[in-house]
């Protein structure tokens, strides 16, 4: 029994760590500028956690085997060692707080970055179960919206007020977002009904869209291509298929895309 | 203050805290249902009630934090002036508390003789009865007063859902009222059983109820300040 249990803990720890190292399942391929730091911090923590995990399981297994009852021997009455206790307390405290500080630096750099004035601004509004995107258009100003005007049947998903001149050139799409590559993007997240969460795995962007709030996130995509926007906060029955498409394209393509959309409207 | 008092915390850390009484305390602590009362029972009652009040405090702190957050969000926060009736209600509640305190003190003077505490049906001092009934009556009056105040407000068109301030007003006073109702049940129990409980048990229970009842006064004043003065 002791040996079997020891083996079990060792094997479990080995397999777990091995599958991480082999990266059979791993982070989606990175496609944003700030994501590198996040990945590094994740990997650093994962490695440290992995070491702690492995050592602890190995020790547990070893102790189980080594200290199995043998006949009528007595156990040792050893139950205190202040020096050891202080050492491991201080060591874990340093490890954890150190990680915390380092992690906070990564976080601050990501979250406190403001979109520069020339950033592309997109307003994204979640609703059950779709994403509504809005671009300010040529005037750079979003038109007025009013919840009373919302009418999904007429495709006025945001309640855009046509009486406002700034509203006329707003470009609206649903479940489709285009952005230029290598340019800062500022997204303003809103929600019409319940809380949603804007998640693009490859960009390492995840942020709740909360009704009554306008939450900003800033990022820069570094790869062109098509990505998926998923909802990461339970919002009702079809939460699992609240899917949007994100197209990252060259600057020129993006300008053209925006113009075409505006013209089509 | 008679006999058993709460030992200093230092005592609690010493082996054998509470001395010989500790063993007795294990009878359910409380002398309930004819079990022998013990010197620690009194402490147990007090501790129990204070712990209960700690949790009541957390409930109202939770509501308070909601109040503050909600007020900061502002907007349509339309504050209404305090209905004057609430001042009267406050006085009624304080008077009820004072009455209960008097009734509690009426018991404090009696030194239980050997046989007395264990026997049911000892007569209770008349002062106890009078003040207890006064406390119950005033408590009921307060609740009636609160109901009238609600009535007056709704007559002015201020309902639960009218604005955030009114929502909090009804919620907080309602929760306070529910807690008072609980206290009234305890007072009703004392009224009904006062002739049948052993003297020490009656005293413990009166004390515990009084702590709760006084706390409800403090809570009420706090709520008034929060609702109508805090800014």
């Amino acid at each position, binding site marked *: 029994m002791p040996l079997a249990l020891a083996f079990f803990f060792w094997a479990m720890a080995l397999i777990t760590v091995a599958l991480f190292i082999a990266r059979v399942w*791993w982070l989606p391929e990175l496609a944003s500028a700030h994501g590198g730091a996040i990945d590094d911090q994740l990997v650093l923590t994962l490695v440290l956690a992995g070491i702690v995990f492995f050592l602890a399981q190995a020790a547990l297994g070893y*102790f189980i085997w080594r*200290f199995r009852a043998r006949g009528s021997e007595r156990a040792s009455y050893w139950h205190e060692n202040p020096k050891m206790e202080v050492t491991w307390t201080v060591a874990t405290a340093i490890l954890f707080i150190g990680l915390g500080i380092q992690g906070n630096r990564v976080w601050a750099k990501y979250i406190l970055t403001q979109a520069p004035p020339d950033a592309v601004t997109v307003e994204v509004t979640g609703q059950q179960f779709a994403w509504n995107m809005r671009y300010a258009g040529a005037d750079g100003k979003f038109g007025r919206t009013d919840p009373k005007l919302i009418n999904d049947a007429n495709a006025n998903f945001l309640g855009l007020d046509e009486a406002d001149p700034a509203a006329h050139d707003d470009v609206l799409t649903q479940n489709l977002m285009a952005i230029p590559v290598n340019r800062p993007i500022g997204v303003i997240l809103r929600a019409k009904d*319940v809380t949603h969460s804007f998640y693009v795995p490859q960009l390492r962007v995840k942020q709740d869209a909360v*009704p009554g709030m306008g939450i900003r996130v800033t990022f820069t995509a570094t790869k062109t291509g098509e990505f998926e926007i998923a909802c990461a906060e339970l919002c009702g029955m079809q939460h699992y298929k609240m899917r949007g498409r994100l197209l990252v394209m060259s600057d020129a393509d993006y300008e053209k895309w925006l113009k075409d959309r505006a013209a089509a409207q | 203050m008679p006999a058993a008092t709460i030992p200093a915390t230092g005592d609690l850390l010493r082996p054998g805290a509470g001395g010989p009484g500790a063993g007795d*305390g294990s009878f359910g*602590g409380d002398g309930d249902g004819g079990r022998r009362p013990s010197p620690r029972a009194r402490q147990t009652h007090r501790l129990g009630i204070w712990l209960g009040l700690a949790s009541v405090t957390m*409930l109202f702190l939770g509501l308070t934090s909601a109040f503050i*957050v909600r007020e900061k969000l502002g907007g349509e926060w339309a504050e209404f002036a305090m209905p004057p009736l609430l001042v009267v209600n406050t006085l009624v509640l304080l008077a009820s508390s004072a009455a209960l305190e008097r009734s509690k003190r009426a018991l404090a003077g009696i030194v239980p003789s050997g046989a007395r505490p264990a026997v049911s049906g000892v007569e209770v001092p008349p002062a106890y009865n009078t003040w207890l009934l006064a406390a119950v009556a005033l408590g009921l009056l307060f609740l009636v007063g609160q109901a009238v105040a609600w009535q007056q407000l709704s007559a002015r068109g201020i309902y639960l*859902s009218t604005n955030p301030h009114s929502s909090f007003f009804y919620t907080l006073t309602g929760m306070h009222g529910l807690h008072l109702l609980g206290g009234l049940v305890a007072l009703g129990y004392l009224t009904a059983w006062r002739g049948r409980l052993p003297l020490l048990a009656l005293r413990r229970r009166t004390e515990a109820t009084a702590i709760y009842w006084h706390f409800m006064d403090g809570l009420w004043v706090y709520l008034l300040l929060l609702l109508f003065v805090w800014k």
Partner: protein
Amino acid sequence: MAGHAAVMEAPTGFIRKYIFSIDHKVIGIQYLLLALFAVFLGMVLSAFMRLRLAWPEEKWPLLQQIFPQGFAGGPMTPEFYLAMMTMHGTIMVFFVLTTAPLSGFGNYFLPIQVGARDMAFPILNMLSFWITFVAMAVMVMALFATGGAPIAGWTSYAPLSALGQVAGPGLGAGQTLWIVSIAIFCVASLLTSLNFLTTTLNLRARGMSLLRMPLTVWAWFTTAMLALLAFPVLLAGGILLLLDRVGGTSFFIPGGLVVSDQLIPHQGGSPLLWQHLFWFFGHPEVYIAILPGMGVTSHILSTFARKPVFAYKAMVGAIFAIGFISYIVWGHHMFMSGMSPFSSMAFSITTLAVGVPSAIKTFNWLATLWGGQIRFTSSMLYALGFVSLFVSGGVTGMLLAQPAVDVALHDTYFVVAHFHIIMGVAAIFGIFAGLHFWFPKMFGRMMDERLGKIHFWITIAGVYAIFMPMHYLGVAGALRRYAQLTEFDFLRPMQPLHQFITVAAFVTIAAQLIFVFNFFYSMFKGKRAGANPWEATTLEWIIPSPPPHDNFGPIEPVVNHGPYEYSVPGAAKDHIMQTAPAEEARR
């Protein structure tokens, strides 16, 4: 002190004895049976979930006959999935993990271990159980509510949970019943914890100083403190949420919401406020689930390693530190919620800080084994399993505590893996360890060791097979609370892993029948147990199995020793009972 036995007469009628009993031991068993029912319900619900996650499009004609609505058209509907998920989480967290370790074992053994004859307030104790029972009944009603069972998750985030049926199936009557049940449960938990605290502080036997209390008592004591101060805040939130639903108020519902093209006539509330109130309770709650398991594990490791718990005082300190810090970490559930990024930083640091006492406990457990003479009873196996699971679930906390890393991991299966291992399965292992350990005391008979070991092996292998792979899913971005993970290109490749997990789950769930059989069979047919079958030292082992109505009968326990005096050099036996004469240690 003669005549004590006569003072507390045992009730004779069936109803007073077994139904409306005020005996803490009967109440403890009532709680355990309630939890047993709940855990089975919860497990069956999880089987449904796993079924859909593995084969989302598959039709199940047989199930369709039983649940015509839940399987309308053949495959399980997404709302049925979400209802299963919500009820599973709620039942597990509240009715299993709060009920069994704290109210169940605590009720039975806390008074005995401190040398009391009952709880401080026995009638209140009975009331607490029956209030819990009502809460459970209402929760089961929610499962069958018109319009469906609630689908908002065990966290019931507003405004989804506040808007009513317009926001989706199950959000009408089902959601209301959910809130009512939780509110009732809050009240019951408050009353229980008040009783625990008073009993521990005031009813200890002579000589039972605080630092001679078993670590189980310390754990229950701290847990009760957490429950006493955390549940009222959930109650406050629940009341406000209920008023938003039925009273037209706007505590959590902002203005200008449009749900399914309907303008909602509310104004100005704050969805984040609900999250703050919920998690202020919610984080202490996860420690309410796990702390008693830690106490039980310390207790059992020491008993079967035949060694004193290593660094007893540090263990007590760590329990307290965990209890205290757990009040100031709740924001780690809200890193992506739109809360101020600076709050996130503060919560990140406090969260990592709570890891320190947790790590201390692990070190001390390992050190307790060092130099021991380990006896591998099934109870000990579960306790060792607990340590392993606690490590596995704990280390991933280092990642989730950092907002930057949480960007990738929040609301993914990584979180599901983390909390299942550390809060769910570890706590369940604590329960199993405790049950196998105390069963002889509670029922006077031994559980079958062979069956216990078979059950242990399948369960430990099973839970690792279920929950370890979820880490990989999470890192790869698989989102939780998804009724299926095949609607996205980046999720689809992970489907085989989901199928593997489901198979493992089915095997593990089926294996639990071994335990149920063992439990009920041993209750009637097990080998008779003596007063102290494990050669343990604490007070529950000086009295007959099962204990008499007033626990100690004519004995008045006087405590002379610490709780874990095993293998004391020079002593006659390898263990010294807490009540042994003081000179025992020197003999």
